């Protein structure tokens, strides 16, 4: 374990290229959205014009008939704007949902192909943040921020155009707003993103602390940790307050300066218009329309400004999601197919971190149908060797082959027909029980209910599985019916029956199980192992006792290899353990 190296983050240009590619994939929807929004904005701009005309007519004396005609026109434009807005929004959201679905599916595709070593080096937290917070942030940006912003930009541009169409002089007061707007925005955006990211991180921490306090309430009481936990919660709140105070101070400077930059053009338009009217160069209607247009600019410009920091965060999330695709794959599938099921490791070296080798020139031949137990102290490299034997990592040098073909040169689907790995992690996926089991069925093959039930039966899990509220269709995993750890472990074993690999690598497969369920599980396991080649990384010697051969792994090397009786007779470190286990000194 070294200092975590995070997963890559895509650069600005790559993000831009991706955005262009996405836009190119949906030309019709995109153009549709822009045109509809533009037309809706144009329709909206009729109101001040017509109102100005009314004011002028009233000022000069008019008839009820003229008023009615103008108002009818006003109503017509409103109706037009309503219909256009409806379709603009609809098409916009349809586009947003499509883009979002593409993005998250691409991301999951790449995340599933990540080399395990890379994920572990980065720490699972990094990937977790990307799958949860970044996907959510991007969803928010695409569903809400981006359409709002686009609408605001179109509306602002057209409103400005309409204002200037009243008379060129209207441009002058609008220019007044530019310098404070640009300066304020640059200042704010340079600070906002980090501030808000830090803020949301403090809430995650409050949440995490509360969660672990609640879930560990028993431990808190047993060890007298109450004061410490309370202090930590208060500390988390204090950190959060510091972060909140910072972003609030940003807004305290930014918001008023924005409001003042909106105010200046309105007042200036009024003054300039009033002067021009007094000079007789423009009509009263034009002054009214101009002032109303400039006032109408405030809302879209304000939205444009307020949403920019959201978009900035959305872009940052997108960059992190795209970054996952940049991790180089650790395997290239070739065309060679194994000649038989013989698993062989030959002078294998491996290290997770350069210059910290975990395995030194390890060789091991696993015969077809053989049962090998691997024992040794924690950190000796047993699990790493197990992973190499299962093709999870490619070796740095040497080779791990099945039937003469390197494991990492086999397509993943194919590989799992030969070797599968089961660890002490018994993860239950969100979904139905059936879906949880079907994960293990190789693509191209369909698992019938009969197959699934037979697999559950083989691991002695049929009874409780059928007793679940909806049987195989019961939702399990996070948010669904909670399975007990032994049930989850049986589920993992039933997956193996369905995956039906020739060779199994068991990495302390039952070790985290509550001892009260262990015996039951061992029966389930025995059923799965029937007729397969097995490499078992054992934490208790009883599993080693009945193996064909025992491999003792110490400090990255296999130091003893032979049958149980041979090793006991040899009097090495295995023999010493065996003695103490039997109460002999």
């Amino acid at each position, binding site marked *: 374990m070294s200092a975590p190296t995070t997963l890559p983050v895509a650069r600005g240009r790559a993000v831009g290229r991706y955005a262009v590619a996405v836009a190119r994939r949906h030309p019709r929807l995109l153009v549709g959205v822009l045109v509809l929004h533009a037309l809706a904005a144009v329709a909206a701009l009729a109101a001040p014009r017509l*109102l100005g005309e009314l004011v002028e007519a009233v000022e000069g004396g008019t008839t009820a008939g003229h008023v009615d005609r103008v*108002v009818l026109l006003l109503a017509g434009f*409103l109706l037009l704007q309503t*219909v256009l*807005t409806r379709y603009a929004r609809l098409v916009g*959201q*349809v586009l947003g949902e499509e883009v979002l*679905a593409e993005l*998250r*599916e691409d991301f999951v595709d790449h995340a599933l192909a990540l080399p*395990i070593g890379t994920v572990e080096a980065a*720490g*699972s937290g990094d990937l977790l943040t990307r*799958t949860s917070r970044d996907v959510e942030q991007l969803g928010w940006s695409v569903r809400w921020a981006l359409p709002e912003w686009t609408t605001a930009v179109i509306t602002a541009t057209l409103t400005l155009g309409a204002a200037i169409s009243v008379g060129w002089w209207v441009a002058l007061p609008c220019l007044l707003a530019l310098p404070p707007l640009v300066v304020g925005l640059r200042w704010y955006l340079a600070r906002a993103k980090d501030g808000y990211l830090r803020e949301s991180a403090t809430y995650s921490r409050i949440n995490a602390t*509360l969660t*672990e*306090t609640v879930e*560990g*309430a*028993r431990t808190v009481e*047993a060890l*007298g940790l*109450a004061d410490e936990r*309370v202090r930590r*919660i208060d500390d*988390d*709140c*204090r950190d959060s307050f510091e972060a*909140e105070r910072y972003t*609030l101070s940003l*807004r305290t400077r930014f*918001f*008023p300066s924005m*409001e003042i930059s909106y*105010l200046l053009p309105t*007042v200036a338009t009024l*003054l300039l218009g009033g002067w021009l009217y*007094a000079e007789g160069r423009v009509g009263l209607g034009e*002054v*009214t329309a101009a002032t109303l247009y400039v*006032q109408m600019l405030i809302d879209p410009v304000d939205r444009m400004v307020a949403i920019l920091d959201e978009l900035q965060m959305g872009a940052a999330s997108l960059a992190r999601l795209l970054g996952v695709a940049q991790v180089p794959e650790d395997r290239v599938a070739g065309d060679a197919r194994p000649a038989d099921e013989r698993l062989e490791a030959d002078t294998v070296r491996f290290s997770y971190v350069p210059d910290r080798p975990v395995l030194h020139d390890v060789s091991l031949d696993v015969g077809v149908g053989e049962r090998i137990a691997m*024992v*040794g102290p*924690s950190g000796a490299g047993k699990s790493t060797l197990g992973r190499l034997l299962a093709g999870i990592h490619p070796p740095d040098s040497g080779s791990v082959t099945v039937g003469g073909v390197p494991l990492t040169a086999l397509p993943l689907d194919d590989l*799992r027909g030969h070797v*599968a*790995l089961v660890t002490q*992690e018994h993860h239950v996926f*969100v979904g139905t029980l059936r879906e949880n089991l079907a994960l*293990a069925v190789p693509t191209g093959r369909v698992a019938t209910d009969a197959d699934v039930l037979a697999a559950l039966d083989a691991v002695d899990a049929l009874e409780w599985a059928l007793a679940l509220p909806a049987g195989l269709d019961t939702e399990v995993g996070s948010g669904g019916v909670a399975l007990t750890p032994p049930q989850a472990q049986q589920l993992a074993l039933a997956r193996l029956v369905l*995956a039906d690999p020739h060779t199994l690598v068991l990495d302390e497969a039952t070790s*985290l199980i509550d*001892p009260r369920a*262990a015996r039951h599980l*061992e029966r389930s396991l025995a059923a799965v192992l029937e007729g397969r080649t*097995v490499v078992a990384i*054992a*934490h208790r010697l009883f599993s*080693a006792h009945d193996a064909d051969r025992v491999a003792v792994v110490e400090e990255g090397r296999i130091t003893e290899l032979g049958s149980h009786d041979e090793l006991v007779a040899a009097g090495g470190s295995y023999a010493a353990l065996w003695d103490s286990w039997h*109460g002999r000194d």
Partner: protein
Amino acid sequence: MRNLPLTDPGTPDHSSPGRFLWWMARGQARTLAGGMAFGIVWMGAQAVMPAVLGRAIDRGVAARDGDQLLLWAAVMLGLGLVQAGSGIMRHRFAVTNWLVAAYRTVQLVGRQAVHLGGTLPRKVSTGEVVAIGTSDLSHLGQVMDVSARFSGAVVSFFLVSVILLSTSVPLGLVVLVGVPLMMLLIGPLLRPLNRRSAHQRQLMGDLANSATDIVSGLRVLRGIGGEQVFLDRYRRQSQTTRQAGVRVARVQSVLDALQVFLPGFFVVLVVWLGARAAAAGSLTAGELVAFYGYAAFLVIPLRTVTEFANKFIRARVSARRVCTVLALRPDHTDPAAPAPSPPPGAELRDARSGLRVRPGRLVAVACDRPDESALLADRLGMAAAELDDEVTLGGVPLTALRRAEVRRRVVVSDTGSALFSGRLGDGLDLSGRGEQAVREALATASAEDVLEALPEGLDTEVAERGRSFSGGQRQRLVLARVLAADPEVLVLVEPTSAIDAHTEARIAARFRRHRVARPDRSTVVVTTSPLLLDAADEVVLLDGGEVCASGTHAELLETCPAYRAVVTREVAEAVG
């Protein structure tokens, strides 16, 4: 701005959700009042803006009066500055109000959780309590936050009403009756929208859960080759979510369009009535512009009122959940007149099972049925749901002692023991005995390699629930933690169940040195591991909740067939 969080969140009134909200509001009455005051000024300034613009056009522009124009432009500028200033002050107060309520909720619930201790999981699902930290805190915060704008909305609505009625009674009435009517019209459309959005949110939540599954399940997937099936399933789920999003969009876009149409229609109506009145000479041009402005403005306060109503309803639901948790009482309370604590080096006895733990001894309990031995461990540490007087320390029943005193002298660490986030060194040194004690304990638990692998050693920040450690590492750290705490009586339940035999042997050997041969320390280990049993001074076999045999590991193996069956049952084929 006050300093947060509060040092003491206070004692809440949790008798009903309404009372709880009221208690919260009273506790922050001053900042609430500040927010309301600025909210009123802020929205009031917006409300009179159309009137000022109308005057400027009437008296300044139309009358061609330069002085009046300047005067009213200056008033507009001044009003704009007041609006900007009061706006940001309102925002600052609102944020403070949000934070006070949110932090206070977290503090109250956190304090209640540690107060309940082991009672908590027995009385309420932990998910219920955790939800308070994720959603309820923000619902409670929001209702405090929106109060400032709500009062501004109410006041400005009446302000505009007065201005309108004083200008033109019929037009004023149209605006005052029409605007609320319009808001009511949108109501029925909200129901299908809420239904579809709820469905979409549900699907989005499921989808997010599936994606999160990748992180925890990637190794499992890679082990069995389930990536493609997982991806196919995710794609299907993602497309279902997209379709739900499109269904929401169909209703949402109509609502968006109505948000344009209804106020617009209203403005058209007002303009029509106003323009006719103006044509007839009973309204000036400026007043017409002002009426247009009012009709457009009134939508804002009314939307705020609706927002307040929604947030208040949600806050009540959250308050109910918080009240439920706050109303819980721990199963065990201190006796009215606690007995004096027995002197150090006392003997722990359990009359029910017949277990005796003499000071300075390491006693191992083996049992065929882990439930039985776990219950015994809980009873020894007064952590079981039901209390009894049969467990005594130095002859005094544990129930006669203060809860804190029992916790200080008897510590139970079972398989459910949790690691907590924070600096590793602090998490391991619970009783403040210093780094040396921690390092010794780590050595005894054979966890030096865990420490060596961490670049920052004891300064490492432990991830939430210690999930960055493997199961075996976590178990060794948990063991080191109680060893470093060095309690008078230590009860361990299967402390090495996830640890390999080599390491277990090392722990068993070092454990004796650490705990045993100290006259005032006694230890009970509940285990079926031969390596640990062999290290004990005395092993007892528990059957039916009672001690049925005792002796050393070797003696019992020799003489007790039942014991032999329990200890060697593990030969039951893990391999072959």
